[in-house]
């Protein structure tokens, strides 16, 4: 998976309207005018968002019908999730080490305190 493609995916997802369009498409393919309805937005404005989503490969437009239905293309979204999943593993493993390190750190602090007390007596 190329960084450019991931960037395109995330840039496309960085807009609430585009995320809402994707959410709508998750329940099935639909026409541009149907998509525009809930957004109080002109058709050209919605078309602009659709172009961004299409360039990022997040949606596909049908050619067969005159109304050119839009549908979701799941590939890039899966890449984005996989990418986050790798981060999850990275942090989970770091947290395991962090846990051990904090335990050692406290043990050492405790030993130093005891030494100091011992010397005072």
């Amino acid at each position, binding site marked *: 998976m190329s*960084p450019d493609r*991931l*960037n395109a995916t*995330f*840039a496309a*997802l*960085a*807009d*609430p309207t585009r*995320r809402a369009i*994707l*959410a709508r498409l*998750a*329940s099935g393919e639909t026409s541009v005018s149907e998509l525009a309805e809930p957004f109080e937005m002109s058709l050209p404005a919605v078309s602009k968002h659709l172009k961004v989503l299409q360039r990022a490969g997040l949606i596909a437009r049908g050619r067969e019908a005159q109304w050119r239905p839009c549908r*979701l293309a*799941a590939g890039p*979204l*899966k890449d*984005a*999730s996989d*990418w*986050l999943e790798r*981060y*999850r*593993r*990275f*942090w*989970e*493993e*770091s*947290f*395991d*080490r*962090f*846990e*051990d*390190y*904090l*335990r050692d*750190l*406290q043990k050492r602090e405790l030993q130093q305190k005891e030494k100091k007390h011992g010397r005072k007596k």
Partner: protein
Amino acid sequence: MAAKNDLATEPADRVLVITRIFDAPRSLVFKAWTESEHMARWFGPRGFASTVLRNELRPGGAYRIHMRGPDGDDHWMQGIYREIVPPERLVMVGSWADAQGNLTRPETTLTLTFEEHDGKTKLTLHQAIFESVTARDAHQGGWTTSLDCLAEYLAAAQSSRG
């Protein structure tokens, strides 16, 4: 993966949240997370050796960490601190980078929250992408675009919270 269900609820939820309770006081957990000599001892997955190359712990300050994997593979992670509220909150924006310091992956916003309960510390890691993209675009655009982005950012922040 149930991509369809995730989408139907809210794609803004493509955010990573990890919570862990550490058996140590909050001040120590915060210190061990932010001070270079401590970070080098635990940062990265098992088998990785980390070196903190840069760690300017102030808003706008840069950080850069080198990690060498078990197979001798090199990785760099770098970014900018945005918010530092000891010992409770840390916000930074960053990503993976190459040897020359060029980012190789999309930037993310990493928010760490430290809460103390009965001498233990609950650490919540929140890693998000959309906010970073919007914030970065805001830097590049003029005033109008910045305001647009701010509105979008607030909408996204609200929907991800709700």
